[in-house]
Protein backbone atom coordinates (compact mmCIF):
# COMPACT_ATOMS: atom_id res chain seq x y z
CA UNK A 1 0.00 0.00 0.00
CA UNK A 2 2.16 2.81 -1.17
CA UNK A 3 0.98 6.27 -1.95
CA UNK A 4 1.00 5.36 -5.62
CA UNK A 5 -2.57 4.58 -6.59
CA UNK A 6 -2.07 4.65 -10.33
CA UNK A 7 -3.08 1.01 -10.66
CA UNK A 8 -6.37 0.63 -8.85
CA UNK A 9 -8.56 0.88 -11.89
CA UNK A 10 -10.54 -2.31 -11.55
CA UNK A 11 -11.12 -1.85 -7.85
CA UNK A 12 -11.92 1.77 -8.65
CA UNK A 13 -15.14 0.79 -10.36
CA UNK A 14 -16.44 -0.61 -7.06
CA UNK A 15 -20.06 0.47 -6.91
CA UNK A 16 -20.68 -0.47 -10.49
CA UNK A 17 -18.91 -3.80 -10.03
CA UNK A 18 -21.02 -4.63 -7.01
CA UNK A 19 -24.30 -4.12 -8.77
CA UNK A 20 -23.00 -5.81 -11.92
CA UNK A 21 -21.90 -8.72 -9.76
CA UNK A 22 -25.33 -9.14 -8.32
CA UNK A 23 -26.95 -8.88 -11.70
CA UNK A 24 -24.55 -11.51 -12.99
CA UNK A 25 -25.51 -13.65 -10.02
CA UNK A 26 -29.13 -13.47 -11.22
CA UNK A 27 -30.23 -11.82 -7.96
CA UNK A 28 -33.03 -9.36 -7.69
CA UNK A 29 -31.94 -5.76 -8.11
CA UNK A 30 -33.47 -4.90 -4.75
CA UNK A 31 -30.52 -6.78 -3.23
CA UNK A 32 -28.35 -3.80 -4.15
CA UNK A 33 -29.90 -1.56 -1.49
CA UNK A 34 -27.69 0.44 0.84
CA UNK A 35 -28.09 -2.11 3.61
CA UNK A 36 -26.91 -4.91 1.35
CA UNK A 37 -23.84 -2.92 0.39
CA UNK A 38 -23.01 -2.26 4.04
CA UNK A 39 -23.15 -5.99 4.65
CA UNK A 40 -20.70 -6.51 1.81
CA UNK A 41 -18.47 -3.75 3.24
CA UNK A 42 -18.53 -5.48 6.61
CA UNK A 43 -17.71 -8.82 5.03
CA UNK A 44 -14.83 -7.39 2.99
CA UNK A 45 -13.37 -5.84 6.16
CA UNK A 46 -13.36 -9.27 7.79
CA UNK A 47 -11.51 -10.77 4.85
CA UNK A 48 -9.08 -7.87 4.60
CA UNK A 49 -8.38 -7.47 8.32
CA UNK A 50 -7.48 -11.16 8.79
CA UNK A 51 -4.80 -10.65 6.16
CA UNK A 52 -3.63 -7.23 7.25
CA UNK A 53 -3.22 -8.20 10.89
CA UNK A 54 -1.61 -11.58 10.21
CA UNK A 55 0.62 -9.99 7.58
CA UNK A 56 1.78 -7.39 10.07
CA UNK A 57 2.39 -10.02 12.76
CA UNK A 58 4.50 -12.03 10.31
CA UNK A 59 6.46 -8.94 9.31
CA UNK A 60 7.53 -8.61 12.97
CA UNK A 61 9.74 -11.67 12.36
CA UNK A 62 11.72 -9.83 9.70
CA UNK A 63 15.36 -9.98 10.81
CA UNK A 64 14.50 -12.23 13.79
CA UNK A 65 13.53 -15.62 12.32
CA UNK A 66 15.55 -18.64 13.49
CA UNK A 67 17.16 -19.22 10.09
CA UNK A 68 17.69 -16.97 7.08
CA UNK A 69 15.47 -19.07 4.78
CA UNK A 70 12.55 -18.71 7.18
CA UNK A 71 13.19 -15.02 7.60
CA UNK A 72 12.74 -14.70 3.84
CA UNK A 73 9.75 -17.06 3.78
CA UNK A 74 7.86 -15.32 6.55
CA UNK A 75 8.52 -11.89 5.01
CA UNK A 76 7.28 -13.16 1.63
CA UNK A 77 4.10 -14.59 3.13
CA UNK A 78 3.57 -11.29 4.95
CA UNK A 79 3.94 -9.45 1.65
CA UNK A 80 1.35 -11.66 -0.06
CA UNK A 81 -1.12 -11.19 2.79
CA UNK A 82 -0.66 -7.42 2.95
CA UNK A 83 -1.03 -7.21 -0.84
CA UNK A 84 -4.28 -9.16 -0.63
CA UNK A 85 -5.44 -6.89 2.21
CA UNK A 86 -4.68 -3.84 0.08
CA UNK A 87 -6.80 -5.12 -2.83
CA UNK A 88 -9.67 -6.08 -0.50
CA UNK A 89 -9.57 -2.75 1.35
CA UNK A 90 -9.64 -0.83 -1.95
CA UNK A 91 -12.74 -2.80 -2.91
CA UNK A 92 -14.24 -2.24 0.57
CA UNK A 93 -13.63 1.49 0.26
CA UNK A 94 -15.39 1.54 -3.13
CA UNK A 95 -18.33 -0.47 -1.80
CA UNK A 96 -18.64 1.87 1.18
CA UNK A 97 -18.61 4.84 -1.19
CA UNK A 98 -17.25 7.39 1.28
CA UNK A 99 -13.96 7.89 -0.50
CA UNK A 100 -11.83 5.96 1.98
CA UNK A 101 -8.70 4.47 0.39
CA UNK A 102 -7.00 1.23 1.41
CA UNK A 103 -4.49 3.27 3.41
CA UNK A 104 -7.25 5.20 5.19
CA UNK A 105 -8.92 1.92 6.19
CA UNK A 106 -5.66 0.27 7.26
CA UNK A 107 -4.13 3.13 9.22
CA UNK A 108 -7.01 5.27 10.47
CA UNK A 109 -9.36 2.77 12.05
CA UNK A 110 -9.01 1.86 15.74
CA UNK A 111 -9.03 -1.65 17.17
CA UNK A 112 -12.80 -1.65 17.78
CA UNK A 113 -13.33 -1.08 14.05
CA UNK A 114 -11.15 -4.04 13.04
CA UNK A 115 -12.99 -7.20 12.01
CA UNK A 116 -10.24 -9.83 12.05
CA UNK A 117 -10.54 -13.10 13.97
CA UNK A 118 -8.67 -13.02 17.28
CA UNK A 119 -6.40 -15.89 16.17
CA UNK A 120 -4.38 -13.64 13.87
CA UNK A 121 -3.81 -10.79 16.36
CA UNK A 122 -2.20 -12.95 19.06
CA UNK A 123 1.49 -12.23 19.66
CA UNK A 124 3.89 -14.32 17.59
CA UNK A 125 5.28 -16.29 20.55
CA UNK A 126 8.04 -18.66 19.53
CA UNK A 127 8.58 -19.91 15.98
CA UNK A 128 6.43 -23.00 16.63
CA UNK A 129 3.52 -20.78 17.67
CA UNK A 130 3.86 -18.67 14.53
CA UNK A 131 4.03 -21.77 12.30
CA UNK A 132 1.13 -23.61 13.94
CA UNK A 133 -1.03 -20.47 13.75
CA UNK A 134 -0.05 -20.02 10.10
CA UNK A 135 -1.00 -23.59 9.29
CA UNK A 136 -4.37 -23.35 11.09
CA UNK A 137 -5.07 -20.13 9.16
CA UNK A 138 -3.77 -21.33 5.76
CA UNK A 139 -5.84 -24.55 5.87
CA UNK A 140 -8.94 -22.38 6.47
CA UNK A 141 -7.92 -19.63 4.06
CA UNK A 142 -7.55 -21.99 1.07
CA UNK A 143 -11.12 -23.22 1.59
CA UNK A 144 -12.56 -19.72 1.94
CA UNK A 145 -10.75 -18.47 -1.17
CA UNK A 146 -11.81 -21.52 -3.20
CA UNK A 147 -15.43 -20.60 -2.45
CA UNK A 148 -14.87 -16.92 -3.17
CA UNK A 149 -13.55 -17.59 -6.67
CA UNK A 150 -17.25 -18.14 -7.47
CA UNK A 151 -18.36 -14.88 -5.83
CA UNK A 152 -21.08 -12.98 -7.65
CA UNK A 153 -18.91 -9.89 -7.14
CA UNK A 154 -16.52 -10.10 -10.09
CA UNK A 155 -13.75 -8.06 -8.42
CA UNK A 156 -13.85 -10.18 -5.27
CA UNK A 157 -13.80 -13.37 -7.36
CA UNK A 158 -10.70 -12.11 -9.20
CA UNK A 159 -8.86 -11.14 -5.99
CA UNK A 160 -9.72 -14.56 -4.51
CA UNK A 161 -8.50 -16.49 -7.56
CA UNK A 162 -5.16 -14.71 -7.36
CA UNK A 163 -4.89 -15.05 -3.56
CA UNK A 164 -5.81 -18.74 -3.74
CA UNK A 165 -2.61 -19.57 -5.63
CA UNK A 166 -0.59 -17.78 -2.96
CA UNK A 167 -2.54 -19.39 -0.11
CA UNK A 168 -1.89 -22.89 -1.48
CA UNK A 169 1.82 -22.16 -1.54
CA UNK A 170 1.61 -20.85 2.06
CA UNK A 171 -0.28 -23.95 3.15
CA UNK A 172 2.29 -26.27 1.63
CA UNK A 173 5.03 -24.40 3.45
CA UNK A 174 3.34 -24.17 6.85
CA UNK A 175 2.15 -27.82 6.68
CA UNK A 176 5.71 -28.90 5.93
CA UNK A 177 7.01 -26.98 8.95
CA UNK A 178 4.30 -28.39 11.23
CA UNK A 179 5.49 -31.87 10.21
CA UNK A 180 9.15 -30.99 10.76
CA UNK A 181 8.56 -29.39 14.17
CA UNK A 182 6.03 -31.94 15.44
CA UNK A 183 7.95 -34.97 14.22
CA UNK A 184 11.35 -33.41 14.97
CA UNK A 185 13.30 -33.19 18.21
CA UNK A 186 11.81 -33.55 21.68
CA UNK A 187 11.97 -29.80 22.15
CA UNK A 188 10.45 -28.89 18.78
CA UNK A 189 7.66 -31.41 19.42
CA UNK A 190 6.94 -29.98 22.86
CA UNK A 191 6.89 -26.41 21.55
CA UNK A 192 4.62 -27.31 18.62
CA UNK A 193 2.25 -29.21 20.92
CA UNK A 194 2.12 -26.31 23.37
CA UNK A 195 1.39 -23.94 20.48
CA UNK A 196 -1.42 -26.17 19.23
CA UNK A 197 -2.92 -26.41 22.75
CA UNK A 198 -2.81 -22.62 23.13
CA UNK A 199 -4.13 -21.72 19.67
CA UNK A 200 -6.76 -24.39 19.07
CA UNK A 201 -9.54 -22.58 21.01
CA UNK A 202 -9.15 -19.55 18.74
CA UNK A 203 -9.96 -21.58 15.62
CA UNK A 204 -13.65 -21.79 16.58
CA UNK A 205 -14.16 -18.17 15.61
CA UNK A 206 -13.05 -18.86 12.03
CA UNK A 207 -16.22 -20.93 11.51
CA UNK A 208 -18.77 -18.81 13.35
CA UNK A 209 -21.57 -17.58 11.14
CA UNK A 210 -23.67 -14.50 11.82
CA UNK A 211 -26.13 -12.34 9.88
CA UNK A 212 -23.34 -10.77 7.80
CA UNK A 213 -22.10 -14.17 6.63
CA UNK A 214 -25.62 -15.38 5.96
CA UNK A 215 -26.48 -12.26 3.97
CA UNK A 216 -23.41 -12.43 1.72
CA UNK A 217 -23.81 -16.19 1.32
CA UNK A 218 -27.45 -15.67 0.32
CA UNK A 219 -26.70 -13.06 -2.33
CA UNK A 220 -23.72 -15.01 -3.68
CA UNK A 221 -21.03 -12.42 -2.94
CA UNK A 222 -19.51 -14.29 0.00
CA UNK A 223 -19.45 -17.62 1.71
CA UNK A 224 -20.71 -19.05 4.96
CA UNK A 225 -17.67 -20.42 6.83
CA UNK A 226 -19.66 -22.88 8.97
CA UNK A 227 -19.86 -25.38 6.14
CA UNK A 228 -16.08 -25.39 5.65
CA UNK A 229 -15.31 -27.05 8.98
CA UNK A 230 -15.37 -30.73 7.86
CA UNK A 231 -12.94 -30.11 4.98
CA UNK A 232 -10.69 -28.07 7.29
CA UNK A 233 -10.71 -30.83 9.91
CA UNK A 234 -9.68 -33.30 7.25
CA UNK A 235 -6.55 -31.26 6.40
CA UNK A 236 -5.56 -30.44 9.97
CA UNK A 237 -6.21 -34.01 11.23
CA UNK A 238 -4.02 -35.39 8.47
CA UNK A 239 -1.11 -32.98 8.96
CA UNK A 240 -1.19 -33.01 12.78
CA UNK A 241 -1.35 -36.82 12.60
CA UNK A 242 1.77 -36.92 10.42
CA UNK A 243 3.37 -34.43 12.79
CA UNK A 244 2.58 -36.70 15.80
CA UNK A 245 0.72 -33.80 17.43
CA UNK A 246 -2.52 -34.23 19.38
CA UNK A 247 -5.48 -31.93 18.82
CA UNK A 248 -6.83 -30.82 22.22
CA UNK A 249 -10.45 -31.23 23.24
CA UNK A 250 -12.79 -28.39 22.40
CA UNK A 251 -13.58 -26.22 25.40
CA UNK A 252 -12.88 -22.50 25.86
CA UNK A 253 -13.97 -20.76 22.65
CA UNK A 254 -12.92 -17.10 22.57
CA UNK A 255 -14.75 -14.96 20.01
CA UNK A 256 -15.73 -11.41 19.20
CA UNK A 257 -13.15 -10.26 16.68
CA UNK A 258 -15.68 -10.19 13.83
CA UNK A 259 -17.70 -7.55 15.67
CA UNK A 260 -14.75 -5.53 16.94
CA UNK A 261 -14.16 -7.16 20.34
CA UNK A 262 -10.48 -8.00 20.46
CA UNK A 263 -7.80 -9.18 22.83
CA UNK A 264 -5.60 -6.53 24.44
CA UNK A 265 -2.89 -7.43 21.91
CA UNK A 266 -4.50 -5.84 18.84
CA UNK A 267 -4.44 -2.27 20.16
CA UNK A 268 -0.72 -2.49 20.88
CA UNK A 269 -0.02 -3.99 17.49
CA UNK A 270 -1.99 -1.23 15.76
CA UNK A 271 -0.20 1.44 17.79
CA UNK A 272 3.01 0.18 16.20
CA UNK A 273 1.58 -0.46 12.72
CA UNK A 274 -0.29 2.85 12.45
CA UNK A 275 2.15 5.22 14.17
CA UNK A 276 4.00 6.35 11.04
CA UNK A 277 0.88 7.02 8.99
CA UNK A 278 -0.73 8.91 11.89
CA UNK A 279 2.38 10.98 12.57
CA UNK A 280 2.53 12.01 8.90
CA UNK A 281 -1.03 11.90 7.52
CA UNK A 282 -1.15 11.90 3.73
CA UNK A 283 2.56 11.12 3.35
CA UNK A 284 3.54 8.95 0.39
CA UNK A 285 6.76 7.65 -1.12
Amino acid at each position, binding site marked *: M*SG*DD*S*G*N*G*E*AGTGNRTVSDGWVAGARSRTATSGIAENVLFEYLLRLADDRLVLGHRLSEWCGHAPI*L*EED*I*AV*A*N*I*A*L*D*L*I*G*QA*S*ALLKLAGDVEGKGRSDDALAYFRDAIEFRNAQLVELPNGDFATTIVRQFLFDAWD*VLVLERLTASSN*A*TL*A*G*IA*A*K*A*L*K*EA*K*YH*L*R*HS*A*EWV*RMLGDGTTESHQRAQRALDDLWPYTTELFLTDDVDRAVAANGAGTDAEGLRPAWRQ*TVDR*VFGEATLTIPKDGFTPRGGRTGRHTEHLGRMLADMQSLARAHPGASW
Partner: protein
Amino acid sequence: MVTVAELRREEILRWLEEVKDPEVPVLSIRELGVLRDVEVSNERVVVVMTPTYSGCPAMHAMEAEVVQTLARHGVSNAEVRTVYSPAWTTDWMSGEAKAKLEAYGIAPPGPAGSDDLVPLRRRVATPCPYCRSVNTTMRSEFGSTACKAILFCNSCDQPFELFKAI
Protein backbone atom coordinates in the same frame (compact mmCIF):
# COMPACT_ATOMS: atom_id res chain seq x y z
CA MET B 1 -9.09 -3.42 -43.07
CA VAL B 2 -6.70 -2.22 -40.34
CA THR B 3 -7.91 0.80 -38.39
CA VAL B 4 -5.73 3.63 -37.14
CA ALA B 5 -6.40 2.53 -33.57
CA GLU B 6 -5.13 -0.97 -34.37
CA LEU B 7 -1.95 0.39 -35.94
CA ARG B 8 -1.48 2.62 -32.94
CA ARG B 9 -2.06 -0.34 -30.61
CA GLU B 10 0.62 -2.40 -32.36
CA GLU B 11 3.05 0.49 -32.13
CA ILE B 12 2.35 0.92 -28.43
CA LEU B 13 2.82 -2.81 -27.80
CA ARG B 14 6.19 -2.55 -29.57
CA TRP B 15 7.23 0.37 -27.34
CA LEU B 16 6.13 -1.53 -24.25
CA GLU B 17 8.67 -4.24 -25.11
CA GLU B 18 11.18 -1.78 -23.61
CA VAL B 19 9.60 -2.19 -20.17
CA LYS B 20 11.31 -5.02 -18.31
CA ASP B 21 10.72 -6.67 -14.96
CA PRO B 22 13.15 -4.73 -12.70
CA GLU B 23 14.05 -7.94 -10.84
CA VAL B 24 14.35 -10.09 -13.98
CA PRO B 25 15.58 -7.57 -16.57
CA VAL B 26 15.73 -10.12 -19.41
CA LEU B 27 11.94 -10.40 -19.57
CA SER B 28 9.62 -7.73 -20.90
CA ILE B 29 6.31 -7.23 -19.14
CA ARG B 30 4.64 -8.98 -22.09
CA GLU B 31 6.91 -12.01 -21.79
CA LEU B 32 6.34 -12.07 -18.03
CA GLY B 33 2.60 -12.11 -18.69
CA VAL B 34 1.65 -9.05 -16.64
CA LEU B 35 0.81 -6.96 -19.71
CA ARG B 36 -2.67 -8.12 -20.65
CA ASP B 37 -3.96 -5.62 -23.19
CA VAL B 38 -3.75 -2.11 -24.58
CA GLU B 39 -6.93 -0.15 -25.27
CA VAL B 40 -6.58 2.83 -27.59
CA SER B 41 -9.20 5.52 -28.01
CA ASN B 42 -9.01 9.14 -29.12
CA GLU B 43 -8.97 10.38 -25.55
CA ARG B 44 -6.52 8.01 -23.92
CA VAL B 45 -4.42 4.87 -23.89
CA VAL B 46 -5.23 2.30 -21.21
CA VAL B 47 -2.61 -0.34 -20.47
CA VAL B 48 -4.22 -3.33 -18.77
CA MET B 49 -1.94 -5.15 -16.35
CA THR B 50 -2.29 -7.96 -13.82
CA PRO B 51 -0.06 -8.46 -10.78
CA THR B 52 2.25 -11.48 -10.48
CA TYR B 53 1.78 -11.71 -6.70
CA SER B 54 -0.74 -9.66 -4.70
CA GLY B 55 2.00 -7.86 -2.79
CA CYS B 56 4.75 -7.69 -5.42
CA PRO B 57 6.47 -4.29 -4.92
CA ALA B 58 7.87 -4.42 -8.48
CA MET B 59 4.34 -3.90 -9.84
CA HIS B 60 4.46 -0.23 -8.83
CA ALA B 61 7.82 0.15 -10.58
CA MET B 62 6.53 -1.54 -13.74
CA GLU B 63 3.36 0.57 -13.81
CA ALA B 64 5.38 3.76 -13.44
CA GLU B 65 7.79 2.58 -16.15
CA VAL B 66 4.88 1.91 -18.55
CA VAL B 67 3.61 5.47 -18.16
CA GLN B 68 7.12 6.97 -18.47
CA THR B 69 8.03 4.86 -21.50
CA LEU B 70 4.89 5.87 -23.39
CA ALA B 71 5.48 9.51 -22.41
CA ARG B 72 8.98 9.25 -23.94
CA HIS B 73 7.29 8.17 -27.18
CA GLY B 74 4.93 11.12 -27.02
CA VAL B 75 1.92 9.38 -25.48
CA SER B 76 1.06 11.63 -22.56
CA ASN B 77 -2.45 10.34 -21.86
CA ALA B 78 -1.57 6.75 -20.88
CA GLU B 79 -2.89 5.14 -17.73
CA VAL B 80 -2.65 1.70 -16.18
CA ARG B 81 -5.65 -0.37 -15.18
CA THR B 82 -5.10 -3.34 -12.85
CA VAL B 83 -7.17 -6.47 -13.35
CA TYR B 84 -7.11 -9.57 -11.14
CA SER B 85 -8.92 -11.93 -13.44
CA PRO B 86 -7.81 -14.20 -15.02
CA ALA B 87 -5.17 -14.69 -12.31
CA TRP B 88 -1.58 -14.53 -13.51
CA THR B 89 0.10 -17.87 -14.11
CA THR B 90 3.66 -18.77 -15.11
CA ASP B 91 2.06 -21.01 -17.77
CA TRP B 92 1.61 -17.81 -19.85
CA MET B 93 5.38 -17.61 -20.29
CA SER B 94 6.48 -18.79 -23.73
CA GLY B 95 9.26 -21.32 -24.33
CA GLU B 96 11.37 -18.44 -25.62
CA ALA B 97 10.85 -16.46 -22.40
CA LYS B 98 11.75 -19.51 -20.31
CA ALA B 99 14.96 -19.99 -22.33
CA LYS B 100 15.88 -16.34 -21.61
CA LEU B 101 15.36 -16.93 -17.90
CA GLU B 102 17.57 -19.99 -17.94
CA ALA B 103 20.33 -18.21 -19.86
CA TYR B 104 20.15 -15.47 -17.22
CA GLY B 105 20.77 -18.07 -14.47
CA ILE B 106 17.22 -18.52 -13.18
CA ALA B 107 15.70 -21.98 -13.53
CA PRO B 108 12.43 -21.50 -15.45
CA PRO B 109 9.07 -22.56 -13.96
CA GLY B 110 7.67 -25.99 -14.74
CA PRO B 111 3.96 -26.40 -15.50
CA ALA B 112 1.76 -24.92 -12.76
CA GLY B 113 0.18 -27.98 -11.17
CA SER B 114 -1.66 -28.76 -7.99
CA ASP B 115 0.82 -30.52 -5.72
CA ASP B 116 -0.70 -28.63 -2.82
CA LEU B 117 0.46 -30.74 0.10
CA VAL B 118 3.30 -32.76 -1.43
CA PRO B 119 6.29 -32.47 0.94
CA LEU B 120 9.53 -30.96 -0.36
CA ARG B 121 11.51 -34.20 -0.38
CA ARG B 122 9.07 -35.95 -2.74
CA ARG B 123 9.12 -33.30 -5.45
CA VAL B 124 10.73 -33.59 -8.86
CA ALA B 125 14.29 -32.21 -8.99
CA THR B 126 14.91 -28.91 -10.80
CA PRO B 127 17.87 -28.95 -13.24
CA CYS B 128 20.67 -26.48 -12.44
CA PRO B 129 20.61 -23.58 -14.98
CA TYR B 130 24.43 -23.53 -15.00
CA CYS B 131 25.46 -27.20 -15.39
CA ARG B 132 22.13 -28.98 -16.08
CA SER B 133 22.69 -31.43 -13.21
CA VAL B 134 19.51 -32.65 -11.51
CA ASN B 135 21.44 -33.26 -8.29
CA THR B 136 19.93 -30.13 -6.75
CA THR B 137 18.31 -29.34 -3.42
CA MET B 138 15.58 -26.87 -2.49
CA ARG B 139 17.08 -24.51 0.09
CA SER B 140 14.16 -22.18 0.51
CA GLU B 141 10.70 -22.16 -1.04
CA PHE B 142 10.80 -18.36 -0.88
CA GLY B 143 13.51 -16.20 -2.39
CA SER B 144 14.72 -12.68 -2.98
CA THR B 145 11.45 -11.77 -4.69
CA ALA B 146 7.92 -13.15 -4.35
CA CYS B 147 8.24 -15.07 -7.62
CA LYS B 148 11.41 -17.03 -6.85
CA ALA B 149 12.71 -19.89 -4.68
CA ILE B 150 16.33 -20.65 -3.71
CA LEU B 151 17.98 -23.94 -4.70
CA PHE B 152 21.49 -25.34 -4.52
CA CYS B 153 23.33 -27.41 -7.11
CA ASN B 154 25.33 -30.21 -5.51
CA SER B 155 27.28 -30.84 -8.74
CA CYS B 156 28.68 -27.36 -9.43
CA ASP B 157 28.33 -26.09 -5.84
CA GLN B 158 26.30 -23.06 -6.91
CA PRO B 159 23.19 -21.62 -5.33
CA PHE B 160 20.61 -20.65 -7.94
CA GLU B 161 17.09 -19.29 -8.16
CA LEU B 162 13.98 -20.98 -9.49
CA PHE B 163 11.03 -19.04 -10.91
CA LYS B 164 8.15 -20.58 -8.92
CA ALA B 165 5.39 -22.24 -10.96
CA ILE B 166 1.99 -20.85 -9.99
